[in-house]
């Protein structure tokens, strides 16, 4: 024969797709990934800084939950993260890559701050809170609506569009900061209504952040129901899977894009409301602080299940708070904790591969 007959040995490793895996087994794989991540991080910590990994983990835990105040700050920030992730869920479920949460948070925040500043003296706080909620919903919603309309009408790329909208929002925030700065020349707004506390979240059951938790958990539950059981939620899933099928079924695809992006932006706007009124009481270009992007990780890891998002929001916040603690306690910088976060995410994401694929080695007999 003219063609050379290749002599090959059997490949060492086969990768094949799994057909269905039990829930228990898939969670066991995820659990194993978590343990593996902790072991690898421990080795890394020990080999680089020669500290006992257990001590470092202990310090991280103390940093996040060591005191009641720290615990509440962690809860507050996890709720903020969850709120953004919940906002992203409908858009992502529709395969609309909304990476503009950052901007949607900021415009929601600007709207909230404006209400606090201009209406703080004239409205009682409960009424003011309602007004701020509505205004932040509208502001964030419009910020999400714009790329939604463009995508629906002209098929523009939503990834670039929402990203660019972030920069517009940052510039708007700079403008607002320079307009409202106190004292003049400080280039910061300072704590708004520090003495009157007008428009601040009230202290409920002795905690300043109770309302944050209530609002965000309510949103998470409602979003879960909306996506899973409502007609609109069904439309979102169909459009996300195949636009052609949606049209075939008589779904108005444009309308679904626009409506869903308003909803997504609106919830991110509420996150802005929480950030200003429910936590920092001031506004700056760092109000969103990259959380609009981190929340994308939360949403994806949870596969858009808002209940699982609670778990991942806490995990990421725990890592962040723990990082700050070990950085200050052991004179390390933030990079060590970033490494731990990286190792953890790598292992968790990597575990999905083993859930979807089976790896088998070469047969012994050949």
């Amino acid at each position: 024969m003219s063609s050379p007959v290749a002599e090959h040995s059997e490949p060492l490793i086969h990768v094949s797709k799994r057909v269905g895996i039990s829930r228990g087994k898939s969670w066991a794989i995820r659990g194993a990934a978590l343990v593996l991540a902790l072991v690898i991080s421990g080795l890394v910590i020990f080999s680089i800084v020669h500290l006992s990994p257990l001590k470092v983990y202990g310090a991280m835990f103390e940093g996040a939950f060591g005191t009641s105040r720290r615990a509440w700050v962690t809860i507050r920030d996890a709720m903020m993260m969850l709120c953004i992730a919940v906002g992203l869920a409908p858009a992502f479920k529709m395969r609309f890559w909304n990476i503009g949460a950052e901007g949607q948070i900021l415009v929601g925040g600007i709207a909230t701050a404006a209400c606090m500043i201009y209406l703080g003296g004239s409205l009682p706080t409960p009424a003011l809170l309602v007004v701020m909620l509505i205004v932040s919903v509208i502001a964030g919603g419009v910020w999400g609506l714009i790329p939604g309309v463009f995508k629906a009408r002209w098929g523009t790329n939503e990834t670039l569009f929402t990203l660019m909208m972030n920069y517009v929002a940052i510039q708007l925030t700079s403008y607002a900061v320079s307009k409202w700065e106190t004292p003049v020349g400080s280039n910061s707004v300072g704590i708004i209504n520090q003495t009157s506390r007008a428009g601040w979240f009230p202290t409920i059951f002795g905690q300043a952040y109770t309302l944050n938790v209530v609002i965000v958990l309510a949103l998470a539950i409602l979003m879960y129901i909306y996506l899973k059981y409502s007609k609109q939620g069904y439309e979102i899933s169909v459009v996300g899977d195949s636009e052609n099928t949606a049209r075939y079924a008589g779904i108005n695809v444009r309308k679904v894009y626009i409506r869903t992006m308003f909803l997504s932006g609106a919830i991110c706007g509420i996150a802005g409301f929480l950030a200003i009124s429910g936590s920092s009481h001031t506004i700056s270009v760092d109000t969103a602080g990259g959380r609009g992007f981190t929340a994308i990780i939360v949403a994806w890891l949870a596969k858009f299940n808002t209940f699982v998002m609670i778990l991942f929001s806490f995990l990421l916040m725990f890592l962040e708070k723990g990082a700050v603690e070990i950085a200050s306690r052991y004179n390390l910088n933030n990079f060590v904790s970033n490494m731990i976060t990286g190792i953890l995410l790598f292992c968790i994401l990597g575990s999905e591969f083993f859930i979807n694929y089976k790896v088998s080695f070469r047969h012994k007999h050949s």
Partner: protein
Amino acid sequence: MEAACAVLMKRVTKQFGKVVANDAVDLELRRGEILSLLGENGSGKTTLMNMLSGIYYPDEGQIYVNGKAVTIRSPKDAFDLGIGMIHQHFKLVDVFTAAENIVLGLNEGGKLDRKAIALKVKEIADRYGFDINPNQKVYDMTVSQKQTVEIVKVLYRGADILILDEPTAVLTPQETDKLFAVMRNMKADGKALVIITHKLHEVMDVSDRVAVLRKGKYIGDVWTCETNPQKLTDMMVGRAVELNIDCPKAVKVTERIEIQHLTVKDKDGIPRLSDVSFTARGGEILGIAGISGSGQKQLLEAIAGLQVCEPGSHILYKDEQWNPGAPADNLENRKHVHELIGKSPLDISKMGVALSFVPEDRLGMGLVANMDLTDNMLLRSYLTGRGIFADRKKPKKLAETVVDELEVVTPSINTQVRKLSGGNVQKVLVGREISMDPTVLMSAYAVRGLDINTSYTIYNLMTEQKLKGVAVIYVGEDLDVLLELCDRILVLCGGQVTGIVPREEATKEGIGLLMTQFRKEGQAYEQSRS
């Protein structure tokens, strides 16, 4: 006819999860023969061939090529052994010429010598009787020409073992004949060929030997000259099967949809349908024949409200109260004629028009691939009921009924439809559409890729609907089936109607001619009938 053994597969097993796609299959392929590989959907034909062409790797068993034990780890290994597979879906670069596609990926050193390539392509073409122009761009080619490029590409690489996976699914009868002639030439040249097809008459026509698989197991092989379609079907299915399509006389025939001067242009402004006029009647099956891409898709989608139609087009739906005997200017009667142009699918269903549509792209249009059976049933009914929540109780029941009645093989009704095999996906889709009690049922290539058994189930469902008085529009590609199943056959060519032939007058050759007869002026149909 004592021929050398080209390929020998011994006890080859391949498992996907718990599903055994191939269970200790033995297969022999000899030089200078055409072997038909026959089997129902999911019987493991394609899996077996994919192991030969390096796409899958067998779990167990041994493959011998030219008497030597080999390991095929990748398509490249397969090429080195002279094995080439022509897949159902072509893998060509549209903006390249035939010659460029042929040498693509060869990684030959030096300059790209177009002249030498063209010469070699020409030589191959002359040797086997291919009709190919090396400098033609792929986007200018018909499906049949693209297929030719795929085959020449494989030969160019020196393949002498060729596997063709359902090559005739997209060809006209004339093109199929041409392909078979080429295959016979290759056989005479000493090449070994495997053809996978569901069409038994083609098996009888072209192959020397038939190997049958059933549920992953090798059933046996027979000489083609010693068998017949009935025997082959029995082997394939494992029991005796009735191979006749029932075509009872149409009853309660009334006009249902009248199409006048329908013109549809695509987004580049190229007409896909030009001045199409016909009437579909309730109680009869209207077959639509044509080379794929002749406007079938646009026609059905236009009726379903999914296409933008040019001014002057009319799609008139005549509801059940419409009286065919009334004079044309009877105002009362006109109320029962509804214009569907400019209406969205939602508008059409709100008008009370029960239009069922089984589109060509099952998972990309008719169903939601990532949803389970229940949610796919919900697709047509999710808006019913009050309130903001979707009612999943009835769809769940419907899913159970469809699974029961159409014998859908699925782990449960909570399985994503993309995980089902092609035939079962189609049953789910057809089951849902028929459950809507349609007055019009449109289907595009409803049996494409389905095995004999499932195909006959689908044919019977169509006939059942016809007897209920439904206007059935059936776009098909197998002319034998169209001739048996349909009461009238409309032929499309290049977006034009080249003929509407009643069943009694239709012949396969006549329809085949109409399929390629692009009409510039006047009626080509009259000439073709002689």
